[in-house]
Each structure stands twice: as C-alpha cells, then as structure tokens.
C-alpha cells in the first residue's frame, strides 16, 4: 500500500533546439528521470518522445508503505525525509494501524536520509501508544543521520533499534 500524497517536485528547464534532433540529456537529468521511473511515475515526454532539457531539482520528501512480517508485526517503511512537514504522516499511519488492533509495529527507517526532533517525538508517541496496548515498537535504521539522532537523544535506550526490518533479527 503506497500513500498517494507523496510530494514529487520536478522542475524541467527546456532548451530550445531548432534542429529537431533533441537536446542531449545531462547526467543529472538522466538520473532524475530514472528516479521518477523508479518511483512509479511516468517519465515526462515531449510530444515527439524526445527528452529535452535538464531536471534541475527533484525533491521526494517522504514515501510510506505498510507490509506484514511473518509473525504478525506490521512494518511501516519510510523512504525520504522526516521533518516538521512530513512527520505527521508517519504518526497518522501508525495511529491508524494501532487503532486497527496492530500493536506490534516496526518502523523501518533504513531508507530515511534525514529525521529531526519532530520525527523523534512521533516515534516516542507511537511507542507510548503501543505500550499502552501491551505492544511494542521496533525501529530499524543503519548507521547515519537517523541513527545519530536516536543515539544523541538517548532515544535508542528506550526504543528497540535494529538494523534489519524483521524484529527477530539481531543488531
């Protein structure tokens, strides 16, 4: 299940090419277009089917998906950045899952490249909620900015942090 309100900002600077041969795509533009396709969006095409121009900015803020693990844990995977503008979506999704009776949650942050204190506060609130239902929360992340936030704040002593999405895997 993919949430539908993820933000994708793409700015394309069109170059004029009177020869009709199409502009040569820069590496940046090619990477950007590849990313668009990987995320399931359709590549922007000119009427002739020739890409012209340069993708100068792409911002994928946050994608969320929900899956099941074998032993009944719900796995919320986040991809992107969690900050003041996106953290509420993580919280809403987790609270909805808890309300549906899912009290064993894994929040998979291995593909999150940034998380601030707003995201940290959400994790702590979700932990509190699942504990109220005798459940548990496991956060998965690798070494990097997210792991550092959890470590510096001391939250990793309160929340179980692992490197793999399956809650039974060892750190």
């Amino acid at each position, binding site marked *: 299940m993919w949430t539908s309100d993820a933000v994708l900002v793409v700015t394309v600077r069109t170059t004029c090419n009177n020869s009709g041969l199409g502009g040569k795509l820069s590496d940046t533009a090619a990477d950007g277009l590849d990313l668009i396709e990987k995320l399931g969006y359709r590549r922007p095409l000119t009427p002739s089917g020739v890409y012209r121009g340069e993708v100068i900015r792409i911002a994928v803020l946050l994608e969320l998906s929900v899956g099941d693990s074998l032993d009944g844990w719900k796995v919320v995977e986040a991809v992107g950045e969690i900050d*003041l*503008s996106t953290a509420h979506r993580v919280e809403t999704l987790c609270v909805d899952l808890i309300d549906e009776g899912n009290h064993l949650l894994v929040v998979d942050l291995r593909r999150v490249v*940034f998380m*601030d*204190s707003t995201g*940290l506060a959400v994790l*702590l609130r979700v932990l509190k909620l699942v504990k109220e239902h005798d459940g548990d929360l496991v956060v998965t992340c690798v070494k990097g*900015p997210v792991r*550092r936030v959890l470590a510096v*704040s001391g939250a990793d002593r309160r929340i179980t942090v692992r490197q793999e999405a399956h809650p039974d895997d060892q750190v």
Partner: protein
Amino acid sequence: MVKHEPLKLEVPADARYLPTVRLFAGAVGQQFGMSEDRVEDLKLATSDTCAWLMRWRSGQDSPPNVVISVSPDGDGLQVVVESDRPGPAETKPRVPVEDDDEVHLGLDLIEALTGEIRITEEESATTVTFSLSLEAQTRPLTSEVPLPGDKHQPDG
C-alpha cells in the same frame, strides 16, 4: 586572514522550505571543509532550529521569513537563525501545539550536538545562535536529551 561575509538564506517560515534549508546548510558545511558526519549535524541543527521557529508561527497569521546566516568562527562555523517576530519565550502565551517537552526537544537536541545554543528575544524578533566545529566530536556525548515523559533526576 580572509574575512568571510556570512552566507545567507532567507525562506518563508513554512515547513515546506525545510529541505531547502538543509540543502543550504549541507552545501555551506562542505564549502568550509566540514567532515561528512559534521555536515549532517549542521543540517540537523539548522533545520531543527528553523522548525522550532516555524512551529511557533503555526498559530499566527501571515508567515514571516526566517534568515539563516553562516560564517566561519574559529575552527568551526557559527550559525545564526533569525525570525522577524517574537519567538516562543517562556513568558509569552504559547500556541498550544504540543506538549511543552516536545516543543523543546529540538532545542535540547541542538544543544547536545553543538554544546551551546543562545536564544535572543527582542520585541520584534527572535535570534538563535550556535556554533559547530568542523570535525565531529571524538568524545562521546555525555549530555543526554531529556525526552518527553522523562522525570527530572537530580545530578549524581
């Protein structure tokens, strides 16, 4: 010694601009030779400072701007974040957005990363200042951030 003028970015006090703030902070950190880990600290501290000011704005009309200035400071960088309206001082009425502990979690986190954070309140503006060394701290951080729900424990 070459004197550097502060590098500045001005954005609306809107959380949608936080990724732009992080791009700016990351680029400036790299420009001045910060280590990779320290660049991440700079992005986090700068973004969280802006978020703290922006969150306070959420209950007010027309969003003001936030100005981020970064300049060399000894063996590190000094970051000044200014907002052209009063900030969430203890003495002022708060916008009841969240639990107080959570409102201050960001500032506590910045303090843990930088060692010191200075907040200047004036009638028409709030300024937050902190500095980061170019290299990441090698000693383990001993100051743990008081998390929401923590009870105050006396030292010792």
